[in-house]
């Protein structure tokens, strides 16, 4: 495999691992951009989803927002925001935050909504107030769904942060965009493998978190097809 050799040679070249265009710097850029975007997305969408799920008000808004989010491709979003925010981080960041909102919001809302009403009633019968029901009954039961939403969002953000290189943001996408521009197949393939690896690692890590936060009582009842936890939100568009 001549191509694979080129990619391996590119990855093995020590000069590609130092300096401002080195893999460690690009990886940190990628993770910082993605992590910040997901954090802001969670900070905005999670309370909103909890409120909508708990009160049942504004559900229509949540569903429509999710559909709208699915229809607007991230690539288009990046290019459309560019004239507004200019080169680099300033464009990539709001685009990524916008991407995280629909999956986190809908999964949180649906997760809370799907909690068995009998359990909520039992909580109320035990004398729990509204906040206690949310904190001790609804959130623990809905947590796997909430985490699944965050996972969908995070994988999407890691993928789209690659496209951010187009608007001159940093990150690992730099190697792919530059590889295309320079017709440098080694760099292109190496960049592709690095990004794919990062996305898969993100997905696996958050899938593990999802399993960890599933209450043991729920694990028995969970249908086998739900292993991937995406059944509520099969809609991640890159």
């Amino acid at each position, binding site marked *: 495999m001549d191509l694979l050799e080129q990619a391996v040679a590119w990855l093995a070249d020590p000069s590609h691992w130092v300096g401002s265009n080195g893999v460690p710097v690009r990886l940190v850029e990628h993770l910082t951009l993605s992590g910040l975007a997901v954090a802001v997305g969670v900070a905005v969408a999670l309370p909103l989803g909890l409120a909508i799920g708990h009160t049942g008000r504004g559900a229509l808004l949540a569903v429509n927002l999710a559909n709208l989010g699915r229809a607007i491709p991230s*690539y288009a979003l990046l290019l459309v925001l560019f004239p507004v925010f200019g080169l680099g981080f300033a464009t990539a960041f709001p685009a990524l935050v916008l991407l995280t909102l629909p999956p986190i919001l809908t999964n949180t809302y649906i997760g809370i909504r799907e909690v068995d009403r009998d359990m909520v009633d039992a909580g109320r019968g035990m004398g729990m107030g509204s906040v206690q029901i949310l904190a001790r009954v609804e959130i623990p039961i809905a947590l796997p769904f909430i985490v699944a939403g965050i996972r969908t969002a995070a994988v999407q953000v890691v993928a789209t942060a690659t496209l951010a290189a187009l608007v001159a943001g940093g990150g690992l996408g730099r190697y792919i965009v530059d590889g295309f521009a320079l017709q440098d197949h080694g760099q292109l393939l190496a960049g592709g493998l690095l990004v794919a690896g990062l996305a898969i690692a993100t997905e696996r890590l958050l899938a593990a978190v999802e399993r960890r936060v599933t209450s043991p009582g729920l694990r028995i009842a969970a249908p086998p097809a739900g292993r991937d936890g995406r059944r509520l939100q*099969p809609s991640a568009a890159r």
Partner: protein
Amino acid sequence: MNAWEWIARNIGQLAGATLDHLVLTLLAVSGGLVVSFALALAIRADRRWYGPLTGVAGTLYTIPSLALFAVLVPVTGLSVLTAEIGLVSYTLLILLRNLVAGLDAVPPDVSEAALAMGLSPMQRLARVELPLAMPYLIGGLRVATVTTIGLVMVTALIGEGGLGQVMLRGFNFRNWTAVYVGAALTVVLAFAADLLLVGLGRILTPWARASQTDGS
């Protein structure tokens, strides 16, 4: 030059790009449907395939489109084939999962009745089970189509892209009108395709409408 003038002057190019976009999407979704259908039949024959096949489809789905194209281009070049391999692989998870769920949801009584009426396995699939699985399939096709319309844009980077190409060129020449128009047309295309599939679903499942008007 204002936006409308630009649109009027480039109407031919926009129409061509929209058509390209549609063709790329249609090829990807129909290709994905054929592959997922074959895989769904394999899973029906032996349930043990479900885990591994959806696992592979899930991993493909996780790989960012740009990374996948980066890996494919050195092998298959800047071509429609490269674009379609990527686009088809992103439809697989959604379509396969919905097809299997749809076929699983066929009530066993109905399948047995079809068997008792002397339908062969192929007939049962074509005349009874697939029609009943249609709502799931349409649901999958809607998500897959809208997702693909978005992903086709990324293929602009490998020389395809339909409306993505219009946007990329606009971006490179700092022609924001082209960027906005390309984006707007893509969103319109996505909504139109979604509506069309909803309509198709209604035509293909007349019984769903009948039971709705019953008020039952």
